[in-house]
């Protein structure tokens, strides 16, 4: 006989029956182990179904528990039975009751006939490589695991902790070099004979009895002692999710899975009627072993795993709400720019930025009376409403939505002390925020407001205090935003610098050389305002300008000198 199967089954025995029947028809020997906890009615029905089938044999049922030696015990006894009946069998494959063949058995046999002496078993050295994704690796072999993790998680964890503290280090038998790998293998009859009839079998078994998840290490380790040639890969496709359980396959995976370079898949959902019908059809054609797209199904599940554990930035839904440390980062989808004070210096800055950069340039998104979307419309992509009350209900959420809804583009907006301030703290804590600040920019605000007849000193003080609070906030350690601060003095003297910074803030070069400068606010009043403010008793860092850069030519009035101020 060329090919035999050891099948471990514990549920959905009607599906197992279909699988066994299919394999038996293809002239394969099958040794079945049915878990002792499976309802007797079901297991007896399966036994009756194959009572007269000479290819099918059943071993005594024991209760198998995940992660424990009972699984190895079941595989061993089933393998022994199979070898007893067919001592000269070519290859034996271990599969589970929820596995299905991706390719026809004929093709599988043909493949094995070309690799007569090869053992297909994933066998990775524990010391040299790390196959185990998550959880215990070397400690699987050096600690004792007397209780089941599934049933006594708490005790299990405490026992591991206690052994670590006590420094327990089990002696690994000298002939054993621990290897791990996928539970599902396909070994030559000869190798399997040698493992089963190993002169050290008693030592092996008693050692592995106290290891953790021995079904992923028993055969994987011993095969190293007995095999002529090992190809360290599993012929059964299985991927594991974040919880360490295999991804389940459904009908809609059928196309992708047939491109895989494996021969079997696990684990198939019991209700996947189409998959069962198609993969167990007796008249199946050969499925080409092309390398094209062989990894697509792997990538599909790897992407899902990444999505579950760390995926997603800048949006929320019923299954995602980052809190704590995770909540403090990755809240907005992409970098964005915030300009503080620029709008007061250049009233037309928004239009100018639109022309000079590729950003979507909003006005004052958080203006108290309105929301100034770049489009000038009352709403924005995604149905984001320009209603101030809705925006103010959750201003940072509003910003997150705005950035997410138009995530193809980069965004910038103006922000100053007259705007709704509730968003400010979250803004400074956002690592995606790039903020340009003009220190003492409030003076420009004061200038603008003075025209409408405000009470000078108190209003100016109020603005100054607000700005100080804002700057203090930016200096705090919780600030993750990248902040570039410019002094008003420098800006007035050399406006080119801040305009360059404003267009290049998100790392892009400006669309074209900045020839066309935006129109600066009328600076005639600046010097006078500075004097007035100083005389009113405010401390200012900006001194009246010797020669405002923008007014070099235009300024016909006699220059004011610092002396006058004092």
């Amino acid at each position: 006989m060329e090919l035999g199967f050891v099948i471990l089954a514990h549920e959905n025995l009607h599906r197992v029956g279909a699988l066994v029947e299919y394999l038996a028809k293809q002239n394969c020997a099958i040794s079945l182990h049915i878990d002792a906890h499976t309802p007797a009615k079901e297991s007896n029905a399966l036994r009756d179904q194959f009572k007269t089938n000479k290819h099918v044999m059943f071993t005594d049922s024991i209760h198998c528990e995940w992660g424990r030696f009972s699984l190895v015990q079941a595989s061993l006894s089933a393998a022994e039975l199979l070898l007893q009946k067919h001592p000269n069998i070519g290859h034996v494959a271990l599969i589970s009751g929820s596995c299905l063949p991706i390719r026809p058995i004929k093709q599988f046999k043909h493949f094995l006939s070309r690799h007569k002496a090869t053992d297909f078993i994933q066998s990775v050295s524990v010391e040299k490589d790390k196959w185990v994704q998550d959880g215990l690796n070397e400690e699987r072999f050096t600690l004792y695991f007397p209780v089941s993790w599934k049933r006594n998680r708490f005790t299990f964890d405490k026992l591991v902790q206690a052994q670590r503290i006590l420094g327990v280090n089990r002696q690994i038998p000298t002939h054993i070099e621990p290897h791990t790998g996928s539970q599902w293998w396909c070994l030559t009859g000869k190798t399997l004979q040698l493992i089963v009839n190993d002169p050290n079998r008693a030592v092996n078994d008693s050692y592995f009895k106290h290891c953790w998840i021995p079904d992923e290490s028993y055969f994987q380790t011993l095969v190293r002692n007995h095999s002529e040639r090992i190809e360290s890969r599993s012929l059964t496709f299985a991927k594991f999710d974040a919880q360490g359980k295999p991804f389940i396959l459904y009908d809609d995976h059928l196309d992708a899975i047939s491109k895989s370079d494996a021969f079997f898949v696990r684990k198939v959902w019991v209700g996947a009627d189409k998959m069962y019908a198609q993969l167990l059809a007796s008249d199946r054609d050969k499925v080409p072993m092309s390398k094209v797209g062989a990894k697509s199904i792997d990538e599909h599940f790897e992407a899902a795993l990444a999505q579950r554990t760390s995926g997603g930035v800048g949006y929320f839904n019923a299954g995602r709400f980052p809190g704590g440390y995770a909540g403090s980062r990755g809240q907005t989808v992409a970098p964005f720019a915030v300009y503080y004070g620029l709008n007061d210096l250049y009233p037309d800055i928004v239009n100018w930025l639109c022309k000079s950069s590729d950003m979507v340039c909003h006005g004052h998104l958080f203006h108290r009376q309105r929301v100034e979307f770049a489009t000038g419309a009352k709403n924005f992509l995604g149905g984001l409403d320009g209603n101030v009350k809705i925006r103010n209900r959750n201003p940072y959420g509003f910003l997150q939505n705005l950035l997410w809804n138009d995530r193809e583009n980069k965004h910038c907006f103006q922000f100053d002390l007259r705007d709704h301030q509730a968003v400010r703290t979250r803004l400074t804590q956002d690592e995606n925020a790039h903020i340009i600040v003009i220190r003492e920019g409030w003076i420009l605000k004061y200038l603008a407001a003075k025209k409408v007849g405000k009470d000078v000193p108190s209003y100016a003080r109020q603005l100054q205090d607000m700005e100080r609070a804002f700057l203090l906030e930016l200096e705090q350690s919780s600030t993750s935003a990248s902040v570039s601060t410019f002094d008003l003095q420098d800006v007035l003297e050399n406006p080119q610098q801040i305009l360059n910074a404003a267009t290049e803030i998100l790392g892009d070069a400006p669309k074209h050389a900045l020839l066309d400068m935006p129109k600066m606010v009328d600076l005639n009043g600046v010097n006078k305002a500075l004097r007035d403010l100083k005389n009113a008793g405010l401390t200012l860092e900006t001194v009246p300008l010797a020669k405002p850069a923008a007014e070099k030519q235009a300024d016909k009035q006699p220059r004011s000198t610092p002396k006058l101020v004092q």
Partner: protein
Amino acid sequence: MKFWDQYRLRLERKRRRARSLRKRRELTPAALNVSKIREDDVILFSTVRNEKIRLPFFFEYYRKLGVNHFCFVDNGSDDGTLEYLISQPDVSVWHTTRSYKRAGFGMDWLNGLLGAYAVGHWCLVVDVDEFFVYPHCDTRPIQALTHWLDQSSTRSFGTQLVDTYPKGKISEAHYRPGDNPMTVSDHFDTGNYYYERNRKYGNLWIQGGARQRGFFAGRPAFAPALNKIPLVKWKRGNVFVSSTHNLLPRSLNLVYAHNGGQRASGCLVHTKFLEMFSTKTKEELARKQHYAASREYNSYSKHRGGKNDLWNGQSVKYKDWRQLESLGLMSSGDWA
């Protein structure tokens, strides 16, 4: 969470459960087919009042998903809803004319029925205008989802309500029995939802969408909650607290990942806005049986739309779950 807070929630749960057992006595069985329920069946629970026109498609949709049995509370319908329900083979119906409001807006009745018939089952609790959309719902039946949730040791599944509305006037969105309401009321808002956490119960609190901007723009804080947990593996002692927005015990509300990743979640497509809506509003306002002094219906009745009631240039036509996932409104998590 402090021990005392936990204990208070436990007391609240007990109180709600006791209340549901008392309120269950207000129900009279009109058609009892619960003996047909088998071990692994998924059961749907709902309260209805004068919804006959919606029922044919509702059954078509959920039977196709694989729901095995339906349990309805009929709250005094007079349009033939009760008769229609009784005629269905896989439906159990209870009838009552008692106050919807005083039964916790129907939740006491449903809690009572869930405790009696749903223990050990996955159950779906939805209104007749809500359509459950989960990842891969076009290729996998609901049993595939519940099996996977079982395998993942998860007992509840979170969704976000997505309001759909027609292009044009709501009163002109004509609907005939059997029509798919998602093709009549077929537009929705894709990205104006706001997320917070309810500290007491641990659930997410989602607001926004078309109803907030359309009817609650003046008082956005009062906009209806859009977080729903409609699919739960029922255990003795579970109770829904406020509609299906949250449950007790509290752990059932933790349907979201809080470490930066995402868990599988779905949407409930809410097709409230069809032509029946305007008549329904008048009726409901007269009955005064809705949440928070019928705030919602009050806002609707005051609202005067122009050419379009809710539709605007940003509205997007609803397609399928993949569209919702690419918009970020739901996620397949690691259920690939």
